[in-house]
């Protein structure tokens, strides 16, 4: 009797433990499945980010190709046409009546101005030219163009030993700066533009400041979707492509400061002046 009770007790305990084990197995497999699902979700997010990154790079590459094409067309076709206009004007000048000579001379001057603007624009759009002269020189040219309009007082300061970074990064950085300067011209109503560049091995720092009307950065980012204005978003995307940090500080009536920082830049070569 005692033995049978002992056997029954043992059976009860073992079967209880078995059921407990079964329940544990059910819960364990549930955890395992969720972990797998979570890992899958992470992989999907990574793939999406990678895809977006590649898409952005392709878009920028197509943009550069288009700009290159436009640059070459400007140089080859439009410059050529302006030259012909100049030549024709030169030919008709001796035969023109005296009261019209002044007009013709003025037209020639305008044609010459147009020629130099076309050349400058063509150079700005030409990727090969920018790579050839380097980012610093290209930025200086861009700022000098602003200064020539006599509407802006431009100051450029450099600190540290100047160097060049990867050409692909220089192009993106230059387009970023072009976007910043375009915004200054279009919206800021500024009179002073300052560019300060700091070269160091640890980081490359570029600060572009203006004394314009300023704007609410958060509002501009939030309303970019409604107004279909994606300039600021594009700037952030370009910056992320070259691992740069872009910080825009501005307030209404207080000017704007654009800070671009590239940590641990991939230095191509130092420029020895």
């Amino acid at each position, binding site marked *: 009797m005692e033995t049978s*009770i002992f056997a*029954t007790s043992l059976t*009860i305990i073992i079967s*209880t433990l078995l059921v407990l084990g079964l*329940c544990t197995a059910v*819960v364990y497999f549930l955890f395992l499945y969720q972990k797998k699902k979570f890992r899958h979700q992470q992989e999907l997010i990574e793939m999406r980010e990678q895809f977006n990154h590649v898409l952005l790079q392709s878009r920028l590459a197509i943009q550069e190709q288009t700009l290159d094409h436009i640059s070459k067309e400007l140089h080859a076709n439009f410059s050529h046409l302006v030259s012909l206009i100049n030549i024709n004007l030169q030919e008709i000048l001796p035969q023109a009546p005296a009261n019209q000579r002044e007009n013709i001379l003025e037209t020639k001057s305008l044609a010459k101005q147009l020629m130099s603007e076309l050349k400058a624009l063509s150079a700005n759009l030409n990727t090969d030219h920018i790579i050839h002269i380097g980012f610093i020189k290209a930025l200086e040219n861009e700022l000098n163009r602003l200064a020539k309009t006599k509407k802006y007082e431009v100051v450029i300061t450099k600190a540290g030993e100047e160097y060049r970074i990867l050409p692909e990064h220089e192009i993106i950085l230059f387009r970023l700066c072009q976007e910043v300067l375009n915004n200054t011209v279009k919206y800021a109503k500024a009179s002073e533009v300052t560019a300060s560049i700091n070269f160091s091995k640890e980081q490359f720092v570029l600060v572009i400041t203006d004394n314009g009307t300023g704007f609410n950065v958060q509002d501009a980012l939030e309303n970019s979707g409604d107004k279909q204005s994606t300039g600021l978003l594009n700037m952030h995307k370009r910056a992320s492509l070259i691992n740069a940090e872009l910080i825009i500080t501005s307030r209404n009536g207080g000017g704007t400061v654009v800070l671009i920082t590239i940590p641990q830049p991939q230095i191509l070569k130092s420029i020895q002046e």
Partner: protein
Amino acid sequence: MYRLLNHRFLYLIPLLLSAIFSLKAFRLKWPKPYRLYACMVILSLLTEILALAWKWELYKWGSYHFSQNNFWIYNCFLIIRFGLLSAIFNLTLYRNKLLPLITGIIFLFGILDYAFIHGPLQFNTYSMILTHICIITLCLLYFRQLLQEPGVISIQKEPLFWMAISIFFYHAVSLPFLIMLGFFNIQDYRLTVLFFPINEALNFLLCSCYLISFLWKPQYSQPL
């Protein structure tokens, strides 16, 4: 008070702590299922206190001496607890059309069982076995929903998940014993007594899971 310093009442520690932590469900205004869960935990604690108090002191009500048997307290609690659990699962499960009907039927049967069939002073009643089966099914349906969820949640941080596994463990492991309890009683009372340490261990596990659940907060599904 010294009577509580016994291994049989070890489960009261995590139960008390989980009842205290469950108050944050009301303070932080968690969604309804979590607040109902908090109510269930607090009710469990109050039931345990009342049941122990009845067994030790309260059965002697002035000059009246009632039966020391406190199963009627547990049986009342089981009805209310079953109602709360059904409400929680009704709010949590997506496909729950039959649940209110099944709950109503079991609820009515429970009242009939305690009133006329077994009486309130018996432990292993038909309604207890029915509620065990119903609760195990609801837990499995919840686990199935978690598996089929389109989004992803960290289940180890989800309070309702811990509630589900705790009640799943408790009811699934104790159900076979409960079904056989009558038979064991006939064979030898010592086999019935074996239920108590198993029940104590399961209670401790149940209350510990309650406590763990209130250390986290409600998770919201992240889309894939």
